[in-house]
């Protein structure tokens, strides 16, 4: 059994958001997708998300900046970085700066599902939600 999470997805390739959104919905979570990182940052100002899935290379604003913005607002949010340009240096940088996980593209859906499950477990351990919040499973 796991909580219903609010997940924000930001990737400049629309297909990534579409594919992730569909499968996240299937798993019982709510998601919002953005192709423009500025719009995603604006949304992050308005709302706290449980999990943020962010691409790294996205033009002017990169995923590391998105992650830093997320942590300014909420330290409990789990940030999962995804990128097609993965290197050891980049992965270590993301993890050192607080990313929950780092996934290199191309990845299978089960891999990100497993990571989201772990993030949910970690959220549950660190800060159990108030009674009455939606539960699925």
């Amino acid at each position: 059994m796991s909580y219903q999470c609010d997940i924000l997805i930001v990737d400049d390739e629309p297909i990534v958001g579409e594919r992730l959104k569909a499968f996240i919905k299937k798993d019982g979570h709510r998601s919002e997708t953005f192709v423009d990182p500025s719009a995603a940052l604006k949304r992050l100002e308005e709302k706290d998300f449980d999990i943020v899935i962010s691409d790294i290379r996205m033009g002017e604003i990169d995923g590391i900046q998105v992650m830093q913005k997320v942590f300014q607002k909420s330290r409990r949010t789990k940030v999962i970085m995804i990128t097609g340009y993965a290197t050891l240096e980049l992965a270590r940088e993301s993890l050192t700066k607080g990313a929950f996980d780092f996934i290199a593209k191309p990845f299978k859906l089960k891999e990100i599902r497993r990571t989201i499950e772990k993030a949910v477990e970690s959220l549950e351990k660190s800060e159990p939600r108030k009674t009455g919040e939606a539960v699925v499973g």
Partner: protein
Amino acid sequence: MTIVMISSMYQSGREELAQVLARKTGWPVLSREELVDEARKLGIKIGRLEVAMIKTPGLSEKLVREKELYLAFLTATLCEKARETNLIYHGRAGHLLLPGVSHRLRVGLTAPQEIRIKRTAQVLNLAPDKAETYLGQLDEDVAKWIRYIHRVDGCDPNQFDLFFNLENMGLSNAAGILCATAELPDFQATPASLKLLNDLNLSAQAKLRLALNELTLQVDLQVHADNGVITVTYPPEQDQASQYIPQVLAELPGCREIQCTMAETNILWVQERFEPKSENFGQIIRLAQRWGAAVELLRLIQPGELPGDAETLRGDPDYGYARQECALADDGGVQDDDPQAVMDDGGVGQTEEELVDLGRFGGRHTICGGYDQILKRVQGSGRYTLVVIGDMFMSKGHSARTRQTRELALNIRDRLKAPVITADELKSRFLFGKRQAVTLLGYLSLTILIYVLVFTNQKPILDFLGGPLHQNFKVLAAVTVTLFSPLLAYVYGCVSGLALKIINVD
């Protein structure tokens, strides 16, 4: 003509040294980062390879082939660029590329840790303590990467021609030393080093073409190039796909002949569950390397032990490999799950990875049943030099397991042309271990004792065999010679056989 290959850990100044050297010499500079970007465009999953050093890859993930492709791409690109001009290359483990080419100058570089921490903190906008942690972890990851990709220790001084410590030396002076060293006759191209460069290039180009073409991407090939002749060796199991090899390699620049040969020596390894760290694997791989043989894996599942989610097994060879062309894919790198990967493969996938990495993979199958099914699978092929029956009937007790394994081996041996042995017999018959060393010592001592006794007692022995004493013991002398000669021959033969095993002669 010289290829300068500068290698260092992160933020140790390799890029800066390359730039200073380029300014002094006017030679072109190439970085690993540029090559990696190009490789990604071809669909080589370098990101997955890199992240696998931090996270354990999925069971179904076949990264060894990506590693081979990555190395082939780097080799081909470097060879092309360095064919007619001097070149400066800098990157992680750059000194390990183009092995054997004598006109490459392998340069190592290190900088004080405080400077590295300071630079890292600046570049990544990290606090110094975080930067130190980052560097510590990254250095470990890179060392792991080098061991995985090149199978050597990246810090081994034997792998370098020059090593700079930038603690007390400026980049300009280091570049000056490099310029002078690069001028030395030791690092100039020779006909032999140019030939090796061309051979490496041709072989890498051929590997890339074969691995990226859909007609041949599933075939496990060994590619070798010598003086314009490309030799491609394929396992017998994949002879159907091998017919496309000449077509795929047609008009490859620098290739004047293509030879396709089927691997002649093959070991079939039958087992219930495979484990690349097991003793059996070590023994079989030792034999395969000695014989130059490919190892084919046959997983035998006992009837009734088939996983619940797999009602039937496919009859086709299970290569377990399908390249997703990530550069061409329209899924944004988010791929659907592979249903086959869910099933427990009994360690076949991991063992396959190890065999591919060692260049000894000859195919894989999974069948359900007993020796009839094994025979059905392999009979008539006549392509096995040896069949090894490994750990079978693992759910049974020790004695039942030993008996049933022997029975299985006997049944197969009777109906198959190839020799069939169990894993226990493998060591005693083909390999040299502690037990064999003790046996050799025993037989050797006995042989020496016999020779010493014979040569120190020649007079009485000659008397007994043909002298005055012989007249009284004619029959006994004949019986003694009849028994002694084969005994000595056996003892001496054992010593010779075991001694030959030490030098890998069967």
